[in-house]
């Protein structure tokens, strides 16, 4: 449903600008994650380096949006849907910033790992995990852009796939480490990258939960969204 406009045009503009800034921040985060994964899989040292030094842009946006939200709260005392939007945004940008940190981390490890060959089997697994994470992140930002609680709930449920994949790769890495202890240092770096990807999934899940709160006022954190729960 298209929500009516505020009587105050400036208030409309303020909220619209906050929303579009979150989306710009989301685009930037998405690009960072995409580049980090590409650099990791293709041993692109240049790109890895770029990812590892670009995080400041995301941090800056987080601070700017935070300040804008504080300003709207101070000036407009938002209520109901507007209040939930502002609260959700403050939380969403924290998760986005953390996703940026994880991408930066992957970039840093990718830089060090670039000279090492990632075993072919591992490559396929990493690639599969990477693309799942990208899909989830993309759908998450999409659900925010459309304020689509249904889509957000679906994304939350799909995070289980990431967790499965993460466990699978962890077992694989353990086997590799046992088979060739000489490569343990390298394998540990891969482990940290995989861990970072899994965390990106978790942060996306959080963002989706904030979207659900913003849209229909339900706090769905710490409940299993794929199971029916009381009150619905």
């Amino acid at each position, binding site marked *: 449903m298209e929500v009516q406009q505020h009587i105050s045009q400036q208030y409309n503009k303020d909220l619209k600008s906050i929303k579009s800034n979150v989306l710009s921040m989301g685009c930037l985060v998405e690009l960072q994650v995409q580049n980090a994964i590409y650099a990791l899989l293709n041993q692109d040292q240049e790109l890895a380096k770029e990812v590892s030094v670009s995080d400041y842009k995301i941090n800056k946006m987080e601070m700017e949006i935070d300040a804008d939200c504080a300003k709207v709260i101070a000036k*407009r005392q938002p209520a109901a849907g507007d209040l939930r939007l502002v609260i959700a945004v403050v939380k969403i940008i924290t998760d986005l910033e953390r996703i940026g940190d994880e991408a930066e981390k992957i970039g840093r490890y990718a830089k060090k790992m670039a000279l090492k060959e990632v075993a072919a089997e591992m490559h396929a697994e990493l690639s599969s995990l990477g693309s799942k994470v990208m899909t989830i992140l993309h759908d998450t930002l999409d659900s925010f852009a459309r304020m689509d609680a249904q889509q957000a709930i679906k994304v939350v449920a799909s995070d289980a796939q990431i967790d499965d994949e993460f466990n699978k790769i962890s077992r694989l890495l353990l086997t590799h480490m046992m088979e060739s202890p000489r490569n343990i240092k390298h394998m540990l770096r891969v482990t940290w990258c995989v861990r970072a990807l899994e965390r990106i999934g978790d942060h996306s899940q959080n963002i989706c939960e904030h979207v659900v709160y913003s849209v229909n006022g339900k706090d769905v954190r710490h409940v299993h969204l794929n199971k029916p729960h009381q009150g619905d």
Partner: protein
Amino acid sequence: MMNKRSEFDVEINDTKGTPFIDNAKISARNVEVFYEKKQAIFNTSIDIGKNQIVAMIGPSGCGKSTFLRCLNRMNDTIQSCQIRGEIKLDNEDIYARQQDPVLLRARVGMVFQKPNPFSKSIYDNVAYGAKLHGLTSNQVELDDLVEKSLMRAGLFNEVKDDLHKPGTGLSGGQQQRLCIARTIAIDPEVILMDEPTSALDPIATAVIEELMIELSKKYTIVIVTHSMQQAARVSQRTAYFHMGHLIEVNDTNTVFTNPEHQLTENYITGRFG
């Protein structure tokens, strides 16, 4: 009887939220108010709990003040005004034939938008009602009552040396507290407040709001306010009126974070119009 319905007919047949509660101090059922042929309130039912502060909000002309005035029969003074339905105070029909409106108004006091102290001394302003209703038997008791009422209204310390100066010489905020002292001097059970702070500055407003919260320990308070933030700050329950219909009643937190009705959401987020 079929009512003449508004353009929002489909959406607002029933009041959303929780208009009814157990152990209500005031129960209004199917209240309808007409000014001659114009209907001002449509089929409104709501309970007001003991020691609760209930805020009534809504755009100008939505009927919130009209409804408030029904609660102590202030509308009786308007010739063309007709009221249907039932309003009970402690299970007692306030519109029953044997009910004396003057005694009712002693139980259900009212504070108005503009401070309206009598052009008498501060002391006499507070003592007036008590004398009228014969609440005290001697001067000492009356002095005591005046002091206690001014104290409870948070005004005593500011005026204790000027009790015999005119009440109209006080500042706006002090005058409003004087009116509150005058109201509570006759020990009502319910206090109705019709935009009690709209003529006051933010500091005086904060003082009155603090006072309301304090007073709600002893009295039941119904407040009509144009300031949504005020409703959010002081009340436990909020009722939203729109074009004579009671759209939603919910606990205040719900109304301001996640209202049930789209019209409530539109109004409190500033989208009404």
